[in-house]
Structure formats: structure tokens, C-alpha cells
């Protein structure tokens, strides 16, 4: 997570209605949401074709969160049993599921920091989650003392799994989500700030791109009707990003961030800009243009 998303989260909550199940929200908040739902600014694009798309995306995101639960179990069990090698090996792959589904996972402004806050994002006393354990594993080179964080993380991830069930996926969530995923890459992954102890940023990077690509693929038929050239351009830019990422792969593993040269980082950053600019135009599928 990063700061940008911290303040975006409340907006996302407004956009995605009916997430009340499992949420400790007051009735006042709930009624405020209902009101905002009816406002034109919040209006959803009235395109029936997109209904199928949002349902498909919901399925995809739920599957990713489901996988995130499983992989987090593996990770936290390793931490709790003191298997540091296994903990290190499962850290980055586990996170990828969360990063792919971020547009939905981050809707929950209270849970996201618990799971994904970096040092300094929250007061030290409240700092929990993946990055807290990451610091223990890579900086202190231990699992000792981190069992409680593993315990807590698992609880939070289970809670997340229960809550995402309630998210209503809207076309706006997809449209803003696709670009937000790439903005995540631009502002924290490409700078090496996300995984500052393990330097496994390229895993998060790749997962964010894959999450954005999924949204593009789902919207593609609608996009092709509006602007075929734009759709092809986006496809080409995704391929460019992947071909760069593949250059930084050793077998199935990505290089660690500190192995990248400055020009390589710049190239990755520019490839994301080149992709995000046309991708930011996918809002044309809403039919307003």
C-alpha cells in the first residue's frame, strides 16, 4: 500500500456500495452511502454489456483473495514454526495474489494497512502485517518474536476474505482500478520502496501489471467497439512491459531490486508510463463519449 491509496480508499468505499456485511459501520454512514449512490456524480455507466464484465472480475478477484488466504497460511505457518528459509521463499509469491486483486482488497481502508503497511505508514505500535514480518526475516534474520504478527496477519487475511464477498464491483471500480494498479507500480514498486528489506519489488510489480491486464482483457470487447486502435496500443504496451520484466527473471524468480541498474529501473518506469497513458483512456467504454 502507499499513501495515495490510503486517502483513496474512502472514495472507493463510496463507489462500491453495499459492503456493509461484516463492516462495523454506523447506520449514519450507511445512510450517507445510500444517498450518495443516487447522486449523478456517482452514477454508473448504464451499459448492460459491462454487467457481465464486472461479474467476471468479481470472480477473478475472489479467486485471487482465496489464493492469498492459502499462500498466507503457508507463509505464516513457516514463520510460526521458525522455518526462516521457507518463510522467505513464500513471502513474495504470497503477496502477488494480494497485489493482483488490489482494487478490491484496498477497498477496506481499515484492513489494508494492517496487512500491507510499510514502516512509517502507521504508528510504530500499530505496525503489523507482511512488511513487519519482512523486516524481521531480512533485517534481523529471525522469526523469533514475529509469531504474534504471523498470527494477527492470518486473522486479518481471513477477515479480508469474508469482507470481499460483499464488494459490489462497478465499472468505475474497474476503470480506476486498472490505472491505480499501475500508479502503485510507478510510485512505490519501481522505486524499491515497497519491499525495502527483501527487495522483492519486482514480484509486486509484475502482480500489479497482471491485475491491470486482467481488467483490460475483460473490458477489451467493449473497448474494441469504441476504439480498436487504442485497444491494440494497450496490448502492445503490456507486451513491452512483460518483455522487460522477463529480462529480469532467473528461471521462475525475479531478480531482487538491488540487482537492477539505474538505467534498467528507468526503463521499467518509462514502460509503465507508456502503458498507463493509453490505459487511462479505457473510460471510453462507459459510453459517455
Amino acid at each position: 500500500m502507499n499513501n495515495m491509496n490510503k486517502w483513496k480508499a474512502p472514495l472507493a468505499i463510496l463507489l462500491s456500495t453495499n459492503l456493509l456485511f461484516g463492516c462495523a459501520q454506523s447506520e449514519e454512514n450507511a445512510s450517507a452511502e445510500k444517498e450518495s449512490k443516487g447522486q449523478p456524480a456517482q452514477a454508473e455507466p448504464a451499459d448492460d454489456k459491462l454487467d457481465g464484465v464486472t461479474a467476471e472480475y468479481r470472480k477473478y478477484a475472489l479467486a485471487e483473495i482465496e489464493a492469498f488466504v492459502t499462500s498466507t497460511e503457508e507463509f505464516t505457518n513457516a514463520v510460526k514454526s521458525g522455518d526462516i528459509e521457507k518463510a522467505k521463499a513464500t513471502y513474495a509469491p504470497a503477496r502477488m495474489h494480494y497485489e493482483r486483486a488490489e482494487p478490491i482488497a484496498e477497498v477496506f481502508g481499515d484492513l489494508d494497512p494492517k496487512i500491507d503497511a510499510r514502516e512509517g505508514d502507521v504508528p510504530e505500535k500499530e505496525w503489523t502485517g507482511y512488511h513487519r514480518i519482512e523486516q524481521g526475516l531480512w533485517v534481523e534474520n529471525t522469526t523469533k518474536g514475529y509469531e504474534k504478527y504471523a498470527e494477527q496477519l492470518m486473522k486479518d487475511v481471513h477477515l479480508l476474505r469474508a469482507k470481499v464477498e460483499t464488494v459490489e464491483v462497478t465499472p468505475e471500480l474497474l476503470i480506476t482500478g486498472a490505472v491505480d494498479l499501475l500508479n502503485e507500480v510507478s510510485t512505490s514498486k519501481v522505486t524499491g520502496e515497497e519491499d525495502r528489506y527483501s527487495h522483492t519489488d519486482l514480484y509486486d510489480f509484475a502482480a500489479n501489471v497482471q491485475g491491470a491486464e486482467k481488467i483490460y482483457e475483460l473490458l477489451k470487447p467493449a473497448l474494441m467497439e469504441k476504439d480498436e486502435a487504442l485497444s491494440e496500443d494497450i496490448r502492445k504496451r503490456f507486451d513491452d512491459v512483460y518483455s522487460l520484466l522477463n529480462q529480469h527473471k532467473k528461471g521462475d524468480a525475479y531478480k531482487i531490486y538491488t540487482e537492477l541498474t539505474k538505467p534498467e529501473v528507468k526503463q521499467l518506469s518509462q514502460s509503465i508510463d507508456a502503458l498507463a497513458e493509453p490505459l487511462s483512456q479505457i473510460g471510453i467504454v462507459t459510453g459517455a463519449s
Partner: protein
Amino acid sequence: MENKTQSNMEESTLLSKKVSRRNILKTAGAGSVGMLIGATGIGGLLSLSDTKITKGETMKDKIPFYGKHQAGIATEAQHHIYFASLNLTVDNRKELIQLFRDWTEASAAMTEGKAVGDHAGNPFLPPKDTGEAAGLAASNLTITFGVGPGLFEKDGNDRFGLRNKKPKELKELPKFPLDSLEEKWSGGDICIQACADDLQVAFHAVRNLVRIARGKAVMHWTQSGFQRTKQADTKKETPRNLFGFKDGTVNPNTNNGKEMDQQVWVQSGDGPGWLAGGTYMVVRRIQMFIEVWDRTALREQENTFGRHRDSGAPIGQKNEFDSPDYNKKDANGQLAIPIDSHMRLANGDGSQQILRRAYSYADGMDPETGSFDAGLLFICFQRNPEKQFIPMQHRLAKMDKLNEYTVHKGSAIFACLPGTKKGGYIGETLF
């Protein structure tokens, strides 16, 4: 550099006709470093007509984008520059042409003070224009495009089928003595020079053009620069460079078509026909060691330039526009204007001319030394760099006393494309 005869003649014109100094000086570039710093005289500037100078005002601070030549070359220097050098990432001619078309359309709109793209937007899309120039005047904005050697051939590849159109003059500049060039300030496939009397307007122009190019070109280096504003300089004097010296420069008379054709505009017989009406642009990022300069005694400073600091007059003279006397000796029998002074060297034999359009820059602190990173973004235009900039710079790099206080960190050469008409696009003669 200086043409003494012309200078004298025009000086008398100045006196008899009372051409305002303001008009003369407005056309000079900002301070220039090296040959570059403090070339004397205002020779070619003196015969400018008033129409040219007031053009911006009568057009409500708008300078037409379309024309035989690109604007921003013969245009009177605006207060600010935002310069960007880009490398192309497109791999085909069709997309390259589309980029030039899109740039042309956006540039024409912005120089009229309008936004990029239509205003009515889909709320689910990002706005087409980035917005920070909304409501601002055009501020004499000019946008000038140039192409570097890499457009024609890169790493041996004839990337756009343009190899046989590459002019022989368009190649990286030779290494000059004392050059300390860094890749991060050098070269580029394409340049965008945005000049305006408002920095936000100039930046907005480059920002939007770079955005339009996303996926087709990436920034390689950028540099902003400034001159004193006309509001601050109420007496309309010669701009001073960051060494504090007045830097009146010799330039071809931008209002004299014949002189511009001789010195600046590439002519149809000069090389590949596509560049006729264009010009060669040399850019040098020259860091000035201002801390070192500031602890240099006044006499040494003046001997370095060959001028008095306060008046701007050549050593031994009273007024800025007095002719220098290169034979005059001081009480000790030494030449009053030292042999290695900048002014004397820059003067040369007066046979080479360039159109200078330089700006000072201040880029914060050099993190390695804790000193200012400040200096000059030197820009000049000419018909043939091999006969104009290159021999001049060779001479100065070898001997100029000013070299103790400056270092050339960046260098680039571009062929500035000819202008285009409405309906056409910049670069159309290439394809």
C-alpha cells in the same frame, strides 16, 4: 566575432536616430558564457525595426506557430525556457508521422493560449489538457522542434528509412578541449524548445507534448532557464549573466532576411532539400563555478571578460557601447584588454556569426560538492555548424581565460525543422 565596421556604423545610427536601447537589447539572448560569455558589441542588433519588436504586443502576446520558419529562433528571446531532449521509442514511420501531427496540432493550440484537445470531457477519462495553463495568456509562447542524428540512424539501424536524408553536418559535435560532457545532459533524437514570458506556460507546453508522446518517445534530459524579466529590468539594459557581467552579444540581425539567409537559415542548395528553411541548433549546458568566481578580485574578473563590470564598457572605455580598443596599453605597457580575455578571443576576426539564444539556469545544489549547480543553457542557431559554432568553440576552448570558471557538461546538436502551414505538420518535408 565582432564586426567593428558594422558596429561603428550602427552605433552612429543609434545616436542619430535615437533608436531606443531597449529595442536593441531586447533582441539579445541572455548572458552567454565562453565565447559564449560576453562577446562584445551589439552590431547586428542595431538595425532592428520596431515592427518586429512590437509584434508580440500587437498580437496580444501571441506568436504564430505556423510560418515559413519555426518560431522561437528569430523570435525575440522570451523570459523563460523549458527545454527537453527526447529519445524515440517508436519503431515505425507511421507512428512517428502521427506523433509529429499530434505535436503540431497541440503546439498550434497552446501557442494561441488554448488548451490541448477539446474541453468537454467524459468524466470517466482524465482531461486531455493537464490544466495548469488554464486561464493564462499565451505569454509569447513558442515551441520549436529539432531532430538529432539518432532520428536518421541509431546503432547502425536505419530505423525510419531516413538514413539517406541525414545531412552530413548533423553529427555529434567534436570533443573540444576541456569538455567534461555527461551523457545525462547530452544528445537526443528530438528536442522541444518551449520559450515563454511565463515559466508555467513554458513548462505546460513541454509537459503536454511529452505526455502526447508517451509510448513513442521518452525524455532524455530537460533543462529550464531564465532571463531577467522585462518587468524587473525597467531600464531595458543588456542582461547580465550569473557572473554579474553584461553580456551584449553579436547576433545576425533577425529582421534582415538576407543576413538571416546567409547566417541562420539552411538554403535549398545546402544539403538535403527537406531542411531548407530550417537551421542547425547547438545546445551546451555550461556549468559556471559561481563560488569560485565570487572570490575572484574585481580586476581579475574584469580582465577575464575584458570589460568593466559596472558599466559593461570595454576596458579603457566609459560606456557599454563604446568600441573596444584592442591595441591600447596600460601604464605598464601591457595590453589593456588582455590577450586571453574573453572579449578579445570572442571577437576573433569577426568572420563567424551565430544567432545566440541562451538562458541562465539554476538547478539547485550539486549534491556532490554542495555548490550551486548554476550556469548557462547556451543555445545558438546557424546555417552550418562546421563553419560557425565549431571553429569558434575550438578557439575559445583552447585559450579563453573564462574556462577557469566554467565547464561544459552537456552538448547536443539538432536540425530544427522548417516551419509548416496550417493543415501541414512539423517534419512533413522529411517523409
